[in-house]
């Protein structure tokens, strides 16, 4: 279990690091991957999460988008919804590169 958690932290840290270089990404939650589970909730500029998920899906990346049964939090964050990527034992660093590239592709399509 410790190794699984270590892998999760490694991937989450790498994804956070990669996403922080995208100036149009808003990331929710703590920066330290040890303070969060193996997932990242985020938004990309004014792209609605469902639109983002559609584009990511075309690039072979499955994310969750929507309210996540947390409408009150959406109101508090003043967003219509959020996107969420999660990582586990079967995910790899290369997949995170593909994930970030898919976000860039969404940025291109939405002319951000």
């Amino acid at each position, binding site marked *: 279990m410790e190794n699984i958690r270590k892998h999760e932290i490694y991937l989450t840290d790498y994804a956070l690091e990669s996403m922080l270089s995208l100036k149009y990404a808003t990331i929710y939650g703590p920066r330290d991957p040890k303070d969060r589970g193996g997932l990242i909730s985020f938004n990309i500029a004014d792209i609605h999460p469902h639109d983002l998920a559609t584009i990511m899906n075309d690039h072979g990346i499955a994310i969750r988008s929507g309210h996540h049964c947390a409408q009150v939090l959406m109101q508090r964050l003043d967003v219509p919804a959020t996107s969420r990527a999660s990582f586990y034992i079967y995910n790899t660093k290369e997949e995170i590169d593909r994930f970030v590239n898919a976000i860039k592709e*969404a940025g291109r399509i939405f002319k951000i």
Partner: protein
Amino acid sequence: MSDDIYREIILDHYRNPRNKGKLENADVTVHDSNPLCGDEIDMHLKVDGGVISDVKFEGKGCAISQASASMLTELVMGKDLNIVKDLKKEDILENIGLTNLGPARIKCALLSLKVLKVSMVKYYSENDPQSAEQIKSESSLY
């Protein structure tokens, strides 16, 4: 694939929606949402002599739902209210230029039509109850 959906015109209507806002003195206002995805649409209609003399919408949601609503207001502005009952799913998809939308996103495109149809029925119920029943039976949801 995504490039086909998120064309310039969809993005333009998403970021610069036409006829968006509240309509003062609207004859009918209807709100509906898709609770699963969180898209919301309000339609406000002003009807004069059976003609949609003004229409505005408010809403939040994805680019497809908001662009579709924006383009729908342009489609029906100044038209006979009766044409709403004949509008079909295919008309909307053609109107927004997305005839190949998959099942996951088609409901985004059709929410505004649903709200407009309910608005029409509500208008007739309140202003012309005799025609309302007939309109209701003639009007398929999509």
